[in-house]
C-alpha cells in the first residue's frame, strides 16, 4: 500500500497547494466556479446528517407534523428544541445499555487482535522458523475472504462444537451470545489485515536496531516489548482506530453472534431493531442514531490523520 503514508486529510502541505493555485498559467477566472462547485457538493453531503441532528432535538409533536427544515425558519424559539428524545432513547429505549455493550465488545475486540497480530508480525519479520513464508502467504490469501463464509461454521462451533468429516474435532464451548464469542470472531476477522499491515511496518524497521539489542543480550520478548512496540506506535494506532470503528459500526457479526436480546444487544442492533418496530418514531430514531454516531464522530475528528491512514491501509480488508 504505497498510498498509505501519503493519505491524510488534515495533514496537507498547505504552502505547497497554495503555491500551485497562485502560480503562473493558473486560470483565475475558474476559481469562483471551483469554489461554488466544492461548496455545493459539501452542502449536499451534509444535508442528510443535518436532518438527523436537527430532528433529534425537536419535540415529538413537531417532528411528526413538520419537516426538520421548518425548524431553520425560527431557530431561536425555545419551544422548537428539546433534549427529551435523548433522555427517552437512553432510558426506555435501552440505548444506554446498548452503548455500554458496544464498548464491551469494541475495546477488547480492538486490543486482542492488535496484540496477537503484533506478536505474529514480529515473528514473521524477525524470527526464523519453518513454514514462515507459506504461513504468511496464507495470511495474504485470507485478506479478502468474505466473513459470510465464516458465519455458519462458527455459529455451529459455538453452539455444538465442530464436526469435520463426521469426526468431532472441537468441543462445544457454548460461546454463543457471549462477549468472548464475539471478541474471538472479530479478532479472527481483523487478524489478516492487522498481521499484513504490521508486518509491512515492523519488517521495515532497520535490522541494526534488533541486531544490537541481541548483542546486548536482549531476548525476543524483551526486544518486542522495549523496542518494537514503542517504534510501531503509528502503525498500531492506525490499525487500532480502524478496527475500533469497524467493530463499533458492525451489524452483521453482532447480529449473528450476540443476537438481539435486550441484555447483550449493541448499538447497531438496537438501532436496526428500532427501525423495524417503530419506523415512524422519528424523534426517537434520530436521537438513537446520533447516540450511535457520537463516539465514531469524536474519534474521527480527534484522530483524523491516524484514522485515514488506517482506513486507506484497510483497502484490502475482506
Amino acid at each position, binding site marked *: 500500500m504505497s*498510498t498509505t503514508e501519503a*493519505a491524510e486529510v488534515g495533514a496537507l502541505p498547505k504552502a505547497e497547494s*497554495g503555491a500551485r493555485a*497562485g502560480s*503562473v*498559467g493558473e486560470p483565475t477566472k*475558474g*476559481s469562483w466556479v471551483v469554489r461554488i*462547485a*466544492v461548496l455545493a*457538493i459539501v452542502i449536499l453531503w451534509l*444535508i*442528510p*446528517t443535518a436532518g*438527523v441532528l436537527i430532528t433529534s432535538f425537536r419535540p415529538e409533536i413537531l417532528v*411528526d407534523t413538520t419537516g426538520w*427544515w421548518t425548524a431553520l425558519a425560527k431557530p431561536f424559539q425555545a419551544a422548537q428544541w428539546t433534549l427529551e428524545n435523548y433522555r427517552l432513547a437512553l432510558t426506555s429505549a435501552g440505548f444506554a445499555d446498548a452503548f455500554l*455493550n458496544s464498548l464491551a465488545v469494541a475495546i477488547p475486540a480492538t486490543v*486482542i487482535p492488535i*496484540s496477537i497480530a503484533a506478536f*505474529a508480525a514480529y515473528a514473521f519479520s524477525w524470527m526464523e*522458523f519453518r513454514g514462515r513464508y507459506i*504461513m504468511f*502467504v496464507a*495470511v495474504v490469501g485470507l*485478506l*479478502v*475472504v*468474505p466473513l*459470510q*463464509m*465464516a*458465519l455458519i*461454521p462458527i455459529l455451529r462451533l459455538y453452539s455444538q462444537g*465442530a464436526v469435520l468429516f463426521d469426526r468431532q474435532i472441537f468441543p462445544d464451548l457454548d460461546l454463543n451470545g*457471549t462477549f468472548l464469542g464475539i471478541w474471538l470472531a472479530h479478532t*479472527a476477522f481483523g*487478524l489478516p489485515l492487522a*498481521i499484513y499491515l504490521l508486518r509491512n511496518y515492523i519488517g521495515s524497521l532497520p535490522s541494526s*536496531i534488533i541486531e*544490537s539489542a541481541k548483542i*546486548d*543480550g536482549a531476548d525476543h*520478548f524483551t526486544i518486542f516489548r522495549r523496542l518494537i512496540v514503542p517504534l510501531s506506535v503509528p502503525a498500531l494506532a492506525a490499525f487500532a482506530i480502524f478496527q475500533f470503528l469497524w467493530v463499533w459500526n458492525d*451489524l*452483521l457479526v453482532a447480529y*449473528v453472534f450476540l443476537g438481539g436480546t435486550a441484555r447483550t444487544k449493541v*448499538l*447497531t442492533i438496537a*438501532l436496526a431493531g428500532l*427501525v423495524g418496530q417503530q*419506523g415512524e418514531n422519528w424523534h426517537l*430514531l*434520530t436521537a438513537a*442514531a446520533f447516540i450511535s454516531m457520537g463516539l465514531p*464522530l469524536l474519534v474521527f475528528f480527534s484522530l483524523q490523520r491516524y484514522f*485515514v491512514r488506517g482506513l*486507506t491501509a484497510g483497502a*484490502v480488508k*475482506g
Partner: protein
Amino acid sequence: MTVKQEPPPRLPPPDPTPTQALVVDPPPPRRDAVWVSVLRLIGLIAIPVVGFFFLGTVFDFLKDENANRGIVVIVAIVVGVVGIIVLFWGMNELVNRLPERIREGFRPYVFVGPALVLLSVFMIYPVINTILVSTKDASGETFVGLDNFKFIFTDESMLRAIRNTAGWMIIVPLVAVSIGLAFATLADRLRRGEAIAKSMIFLPMAISFAGAAVTWQLVYAYRPEAFGSNIGLLNGIMLGLGQDPVPWLQQQPWNNLLLMVIMVWMQTGFAMVVLSAAIKSIPDEIIEAARIDGATELQVFRRIIVPTIVPTIVVVTTYMVINALKVFDIVFVIGSAEANGTEVIAERMLDWFFISNHDGRGAAIAVLLFVAVVPVMIWNVRRFREQEATR
C-alpha cells in the same frame, strides 16, 4: 542476566564494547536436577489449569442476567484486555522453563501460535466447512448434491439479488470514484479550506451503515395521504414543487438506485482522500510544464493527472467492488427487501441462514460470495510474491 533485565529503551550504542559483550551470558548449568524438571512440568500444567478455572468463573459472571450492566461491561473489558497480555506473558514464561536446547526453536511458535490457531479455527476451517455444508440440506446433515446451487440460480428472489448485487458492484464504485476524483481535483485548487471541505465529504465514512440507513430513511420518508404529513426531505421538495409525494423506497427498480446512493454517500470520501493523496504526489513541475506549453486545465486533468494515478484508481475501485459485493447492512436495516425487490446476495445469505434456518442454502450463497473474490485473492497473493521476490 543483568543486561537482560535492563535493556536500553531506545537505540543502543552502535558499537558495544567487547567487555559488555563478554559479561552478557554466564554459561547456564548443563543439566537440571530431576526435581527441578518435575517442578517445571507441574508449572507447565498448573498455570493453564488455574487460568481456565479463573476464566470460567469470570465468564459465568459475565453471563449473569441480574448483574449490574456497568460492572459487567467493566469486568468484560478488563478481562479481555488483561487476558491477552497475560496470555503472551504466560506463554513466554512457559517457554523460558523449557530445556535450553529446544527453547529458541519453540519461541517463534509462541509468537505466531495464537494468530495461527485463530485463523485456522475462524477462517480456514469455516471455508472448508461452508463448502461442505453448501451440499447439505436445511439442517446441514443430509447430502443433497448441487441442489442448493440449482436453487440459488433458479429462485426468482435469488436471481434478483444476484442482478441487484451486480448493479451495486458496477454503479457504486463508478459513481463514488468519479465524484471522489472530481472533488479531489477541485479541492486541490482551493486557496483555503481544502482540509475542511474534505473532512465534510469524508465524515460519513466514520458512521455505521445502520446509522447511514436511518439517516437516509429520513430523506426518503413517505406517508400516504391521511397517515400524517410528509416529513421526508425528498417529499418535502416534491410538495414544494406542487407535486404529489412519492413512496420512494417502493419504486421498483429505481429504489435500488436510491439505496446505492447511501453507499456512494458513505464511500466517496474514501475514494476522494486516497485519490487526493495520489494527485498531490504528482510533481508540480510536470503540471507547470504542461500549462506553459499551453495545455488547458481539462487537458492537464485528462492527459497528465488521470494517467499518472491509474494504479491508485485501480486499487480504490477494487476495494469498492468487494465492498459492494458484500453490502448487507443498508438493505437489511431499510428492510422489506423481498417486497421491494431490493435483495442483495449477502442479505439473502443471512435471510436463508438465520431467518429461514436453511443452513445449506445459506452456505451455498456464502460460497457464491467467496467464489466472486477468489480472483482478487489470487491477484493479492501473486502481487505479494512478486514483491517478496524483489526484496
